[in-house]
């Protein structure tokens, strides 16, 4: 049975599930790490001296004939968006850090059922509380009553 990729889309946790998409290590401007034990590092490319562009498209990938005066130099190599050293950005909110692309109210039926049960409980407890009310003249030795002292004891 195949299992769908459980990794979320977007959000800070994406690099945890897709380590190949990890960014280059930070430079000297990185904020000093906290004294707490760090979460595990995502795996990084072995040869960090090369950019992704150089690894994917070496200089001699597109050779041209020597006698062509027009193409004396190789054409510019396609450079995908190079990883830039990230600068310290403004703090994200929790909603932005764990972004849900299309937020929706999950399992609404359960919340409706829970609300109905809770309302039912409140109604029954309302009737139960009315049973604690007694006139002084009707008080019997075995009568159960509720006042502030009883609540404090409870």
């Amino acid at each position: 049975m195949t299992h769908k990729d459980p990794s979320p889309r977007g959000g800070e946790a994406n690099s945890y599930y897709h380590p190949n998409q990890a960014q280059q290590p930070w430079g000297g401007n990185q904020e000093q790490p906290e004294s707490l034990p760090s979460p595990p590092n995502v795996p990084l490319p072995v040869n960090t001296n090369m950019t992704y562009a150089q690894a994917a498209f070496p200089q001699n990938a597109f050779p041209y004939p020597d006698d062509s005066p027009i193409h004396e130099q190789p054409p510019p190599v396609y450079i995908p968006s190079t990883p830039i050293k990230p600068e310290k950005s403004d703090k994200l909110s929790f909603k932005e850090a764990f972004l849900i692309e299309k937020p929706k109210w999950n399992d609404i039926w359960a919340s409706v059922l829970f609300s109905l049960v809770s309302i039912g409980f409140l109604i029954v407890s309302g009737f139960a509380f009315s049973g604690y009310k007694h006139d002084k003249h009707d008080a019997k030795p075995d009568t159960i009553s509720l006042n502030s002292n009883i609540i404090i004891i409870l």
Partner: protein
Amino acid sequence: MAFMLSLMYFLTVRYATKLVIYITAFMQVVMGFVTSIIYFARHSYAAAVIFLLLTIFYVFCFFSWRKKIPFSVLMLQTVIDVSKKYGNSFVVSAAGGLVATIFSIYFAVTLVGIYAMYHPGGTACGKDGENCGKAKVAMLIIFITFAAFWITEVIKNIIHVTVSGVYGSWYFCSRKPSGFPKGATTGAFKRAITYSFGSISFGSLVVAIMQFFRQLCTLVQVGEQAEGNAVGAFLGRFLGCFISLLEWLIEFINEYAFSYMALYGKAYIPAAKVRLFLSCPCI
């Protein structure tokens, strides 16, 4: 007094973690042997042998777990440090505990009030005993007991989802340039009571049903035992144990499913499937 003792234990666990683990294990073994000796002295040989075997089994388990103690020490210290650094998790836990305590008192008062009103001779009974009766009392008690189980589970799991949001934020974001997200506790709590509230209710409902049936089995077992029906009592106890196992399994799934829900906003079934996949990749 309880608060001070809890605080002292908390600080002791943080600063003498390894010692606490070894002392706890040692005390567990000692208490097991002492209990077994007491049962032997009282000539309750069956209970004595059971406790002795369980204690010996625990000693064997402890020696096999010893190599994992340094990891446990690191995990405990890290968890405590995160909770100290982002102290809102304490506030959430304390507030949730207070709400749960107030609710339990409210439930107790309601339970007694129902009995006082509707039992034969109660305050709601008419002249000929109409409007009350044992069946009515039983139905109402069953309903409010089930409702109380569910409401208590929902309160507990809302706290769990909120605190999971805090720890998840630390785990995934504390080393990022943007750092720990602002308003993590509030954001996680908002998500718990809005988008994920239905999923929390669903997961809590499953546990509440298990707890309710386990309670019914206990009542059946006690009732059969009082009537001298050994077979009925045994069946009630056996079924109660089986339901307890199911309840443990569902809570095991829920614990991580709710944490997954806190960060990614998934519904209950997909989050539970992810949890099962983590445990059993063959699924």
